[in-house]
């Protein structure tokens, strides 16, 4: 009881409440602007968190990401342009509802079921994380090595591109993480005599570069999206209770799927929304209505992406392995603020954990009133010209990355990562895998080298412990799966050719 009360006291501090409110407004605005993803919103916030207390810093990340995932639905429903990739799965459906004159119902469903999904996801985090922490306490470096590798492999498996390209992106990220002296031997590696590289490449310039600068570069190469006509909205939540009762089962299924996908390291809100929308159509009694402006898929996928956001914190808090790119950023902030992820966080910093749960609940509760205001203001915010927004984003990239270490080299790094992210995306290499590689590189190497030193260079102990061997089997299957799938496709294609 004592840690819970302490958690409440931590959250009710004035600076934390201001941080929650300000980041909620920021998340809603950034998420609703097409092209600016929730990850980008969070990445741009990191430099600001340097100057905040640990709880306020984590509160800004949680609140901004939850709000941005919801508000990505707004341009999706009104312009058929998803604000964030997590809304892309049901954008066509929401837009079809708008064209049928049901914009309020579509936007309200996005808001209402996002808030429910977020709260259910938080409850899963509250129940799952402490239970798993007990198990995690018995893990050695061997298990941590396989777990980190499995996290990276999951990220590559769920990427919507060639798995081989995703693995290559992940390896590139790991290679970038090798730069500097931050290795188990403390030897300068790949620094090419540049003193600025001795400290290694921080994840923040890399994140800001690949997610924000590359987006500004894409904007330079594409035409401005259409403007939203001015309109007044009716009641946003009027029919949501009816939808909740009617689509109760899809809603719970969306929550459940979102939680499972969130807990898997590497798979995030985007994947949760796509899977849930597909499941909704598959199990619906009226699948023929999908795509014509039917709210069922919206209910399920809208709940799913927000549920995955909260449960994505489970592997992050327990093992320091990001559930998605947003929690990859959050891990950096946790380390920076002395809240080092790991199972001991639940025993030694219990009040901070309770504070985190309370922030999640609070963020999802204030999402409803602020979300309604945002929807009402949408026709004004969405009319902001991209040519005015993008230059400010670019300026924030420069100042934000400079602020990470008061160092202009970071600004150059942001530019380099922007180019890298742009070229990679254009050629089908997923940038999320690159970022996860950079974030998890030192953890993976640390556990790999420590395990090898412990075993005198013998690889057998990597497979000897029961949990370790189970995780090894999963990781190796994930690694070999793309090759097996390719061989299977080739064989079945040649069989068809012979039969034909």
């Amino acid at each position, binding site marked *: 009881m004592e840690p819970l009360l302490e958690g409440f006291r931590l959250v009710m501090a004035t600076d934390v409440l201001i941080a929650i409110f300000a980041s909620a407004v920021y998340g809603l605005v950034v998420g609703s602007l097409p092209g600016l993803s929730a990850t980008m919103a969070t990445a741009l916030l990191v*430099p600001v968190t*340097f*100057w905040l207390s640990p709880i306020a810093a984590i509160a800004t990340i949680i609140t901004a990401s939850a709000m941005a995932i919801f508000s990505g639905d707004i341009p999706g429903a009104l312009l058929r342009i998803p604000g964030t990739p997590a809304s892309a799965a049901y954008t066509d459906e929401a837009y079809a509802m708008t064209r049928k004159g049901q914009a309020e119902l579509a936007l309200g469903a996005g808001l209402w079921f996002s808030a429910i999904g977020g709260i259910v996801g938080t409850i899963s985090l509250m129940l799952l994380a402490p239970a798993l922490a007990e198990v995690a306490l018995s893990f050695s470096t061997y298990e941590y090595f396989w777990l980190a590798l499995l996290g990276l492999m999951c990220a590559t498996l769920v990427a919507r*591109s*060639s*798995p*081989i*390209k995703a*693995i*290559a992106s992940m*390896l*590139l990220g*790991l*290679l970038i993480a*090798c730069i500097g002296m931050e*290795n188990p*031997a403390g*030897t300068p*590696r*790949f620094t090419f005599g540049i003193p600025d590289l001795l400290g290694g490449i921080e994840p923040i310039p890399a994140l800001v570069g690949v997610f924000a*600068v590359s987006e*500004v*570069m894409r*904007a*330079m*190469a*594409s*035409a*401005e999206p259409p403007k939203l006509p001015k309109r007044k909205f009716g009641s946003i939540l009027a029919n949501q209770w009816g939808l909740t009762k009617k689509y109760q089962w899809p809603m719970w299924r969306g929550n459940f799927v979102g939680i499972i996908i969130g807990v898997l390291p590497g798979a995030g809100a985007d994947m949760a929304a796509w899977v849930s929308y597909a499941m909704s159509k598959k199990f619906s009694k009226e699948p023929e209505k999908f795509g014509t402006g039917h709210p069922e898929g919206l209910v399920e996928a809208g709940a799913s992406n927000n549920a995955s956001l909260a449960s994505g914190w489970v592997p992050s808090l327990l093992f320091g392995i990001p559930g998605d790119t947003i929690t990859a950023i959050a891990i950096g902030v946790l380390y920076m603020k002395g809240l080092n992820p790991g199972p001991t966080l639940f025993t030694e910093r219990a009040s901070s954990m309770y504070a985190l749960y309370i922030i999640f609940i609070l963020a999802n509760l204030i999402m409803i009133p602020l979300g309604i205001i945002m929807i009402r203001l949408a026709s004004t915010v969405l009319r902001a010209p*991209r*040519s*005015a927004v993008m*230059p*400010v984003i*670019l*300026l*924030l990239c*420069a*100042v934000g990355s400079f*602020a990470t270490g*008061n160092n*202009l080299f970071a*600004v*150059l790094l*942001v*530019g*380099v990562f*922007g*180019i890298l992210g*742009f070229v990679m995306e254009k*050629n089908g*290499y997923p940038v999320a895998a690159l970022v996860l590689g950079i974030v998890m590189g030192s953890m993976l190497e640390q556990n790999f*080298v420590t395990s*090898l*030193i412990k075993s*005198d260079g013998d690889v057998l102990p990597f497979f000897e412990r029961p949990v370790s061997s189970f995780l090894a089997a999963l990781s190796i299957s994930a690694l070999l799966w*793309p*090759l097996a*799938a*390719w061989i299977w496709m080739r064989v079945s294609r040649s069989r068809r050719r012979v039969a034909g």
Partner: protein
Amino acid sequence: MLVTDRITGGGLMALGAAAAWFGSRLPAVPGQDVGPAAFPMVIGFGLMGCGALIALGIGQSFEPPEEAEEGPKPRLGASGVLIPPALLLFYALASEPLGFLLTAAIMVLVAGLALGSRLAIAIPVAVVAPLLVHLAFYKLLRVPLPEGLIPAPW
């Protein structure tokens, strides 16, 4: 910048080979079998393998088909994509001598115009945005931003 899988795969193979070679030359830790070389070498060999598979076109069938871009073309064409990194380079080089406000104003103005903004919008944004960002970072977050030729009014 769309290049063929043969080129990106070849590039990854070369990068992997370089990583493995440079990694192998790293000094060993006395008394230990595993040194700083182990991890870069594993990654290097992994990259060489992936690069080879990509160059051979393996795994291409998993990729979604390329979507044709619709709508009007941007006014600067494909070369416009280099403007944001060029402006970041400009910021890194010019912010110390020119100061934050002037550098940021030039940066925002050029980016705005490149994105097709009218001067009537681009100029006010270039004046107001640097002042607001300066206020937020310098006053609220205490980030030391260079004064240069035009110091901030606060």
